[in-house]
């Protein structure tokens, strides 16, 4: 890297991928689309030195499921690349080929939110119990354990009150 990476250079560079805003002193948020996430990560990795993935966060927005890729580099600025996926067809390309640690985060997101990452070779259910139904994703907002739902002969009790 010849010139130091600052918030301004990142903003300028990432403008082509979508809306860029600075949400904190050292954190930048870029809103992009699922098709371009691969390019955005490649660019931020190669050009801006964002070489490590902190985590992939998932939020259920109701209509859409939002994925946030938090990356950080040696300059200690965090970039959050956000994409939104439609609820009825949550499919996005995997980034585990670019960022190796992403594979483990994608697996757990697949289990708990039902988002499919195309190209991830190991996309089978593991986090939940073996007999957990395949079409129930517990961290989605509209999921609640029914009072008479049984998993493996064990009743999942519904909590009274909260």
């Amino acid at each position, binding site marked *: 890297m010849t010139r130091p990476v600052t918030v301004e250079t990142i903003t300028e560079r990432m403008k082509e991928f979508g809306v860029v805003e600075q*949400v*904190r002193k*050292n*954190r930048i948020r870029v809103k992009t689309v699922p098709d371009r996430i691969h390019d955005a990560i490649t660019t931020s990795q190669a050009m801006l030195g964002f*070489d*490590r*993935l*902190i*985590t992939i*966060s*998932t*939020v*259920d927005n109701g209509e859409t499921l939002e994925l*946030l890729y*938090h990356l950080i580099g040696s300059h*200690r600025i*965090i970039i*959050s690349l956000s994409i939104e996926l439609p609820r009825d067809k949550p499919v996005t390309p995997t980034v585990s080929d670019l*960022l*190796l*640690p992403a*594979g*483990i*985060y994608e*697996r*757990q997101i697949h*289990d*708990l939110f039902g988002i499919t990452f195309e190209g991830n*070779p*190991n996309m089978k259910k*593991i*986090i*939940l119990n073996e007999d957990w139904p395949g079409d129930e994703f*517990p*961290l989605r907002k509209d999921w609640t354990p029914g009072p008479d739902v049984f998993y493996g002969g064990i009743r999942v009790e519904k*909590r009274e009150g*909260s």
Partner: protein
Amino acid sequence: MPEVVVSIGPQHPALKEPVNFKVIADGEKIVRLELDLSYNHRGIEKAAEQRNFIRVLPLLERVCGICSHSHATVFSKGIEEIMGLSIPPRAQYIRTIIAELERMHSHLLWLGVAAHVIGFNTLFMWTWRDREAVQDTLEEMSGNRVHYGMNEIGGVRRDLTPAQVEAALARLPVLEERIKKYVEMVNSEETMLIRFRDVGKMSREEALKYGAVGPTARASGVDYDVRRDDPYLAYAEVPWNVITDTHGDVYGRTRVRVGELWESTQIVRYCLENLPAGPIRVDAPKTAPKGEILSRYEAPRGELAHFIRTNGTDKVERVDIRTPTLANWTSVAVCLVNQNIADIPVIVAAIDPCLSCTSRLTVVNRVDKVGR
């Protein structure tokens, strides 16, 4: 030679925590490793969405019993930032003291467990004996040996009385002397050198590539510590050093942890001696405005990140917990390739795995056979 699958866990005499290893071995050499870690999955993230800020903190403390203060602090730190509260300096210092004492007890615990897995039980007994001094201090300050319950949104719940500060300062010299002894031991004790040197080697590039955090990364020469890079609590005011090492093996990780033990005693000493006067909390509003934050914290095992999104009510919309052990599993699976089966406990123990942290979500790691 045909590959053999060795399955270990979840309940096994050699394991202290529920985890399932499927080690695919070729003779004595490990080809790859599959991990199944979700035996402790409880669904804390879902429950956190249904509880208000007062009731969610004890829940988040119990994500993990060893780094309980970390989870509570990182969450309250994030919520306070969304609310725009500034925490009184005395509360910051008290949080720092508890955090560093927690790091001390966690590292002493780790040193003991690491010594235990190589059959060096004398050190195991020694570190756990010294750990009791830290535990006593924590119990005197917070009222519990493990779940301190010191945090609340807006400050801390308990003040430190002068008597407690005195008692803590009185215990420090003994600990410092013991820790000096451990530093010396790590560098000279033959038993440890033989089993730790060149075991589980990871270069700086690999540590970066596989996203290792905490002492595991710092042992490989990655100079990365959230306490310095994104200062929170009182770390910007306290003089201390980031410990790094270039060995990159289990020996290096031991050196980093023992070095951090020493730094922690110095931070605790500084904070206790320079404890500012004033209130210990501010009144926090019941609800938080809309917002989102990525709150980071250097837990004893590495960088802990909570992604918090609030929606204007007294509950969080979403809290996404990324625990340090989770980030380290990829690197440990890489370290294990081409090592001896007998070295599995040492290498796994070297990242200080905390499975109840990890298994709030779960992973199976897949390591390419070509690996490294």
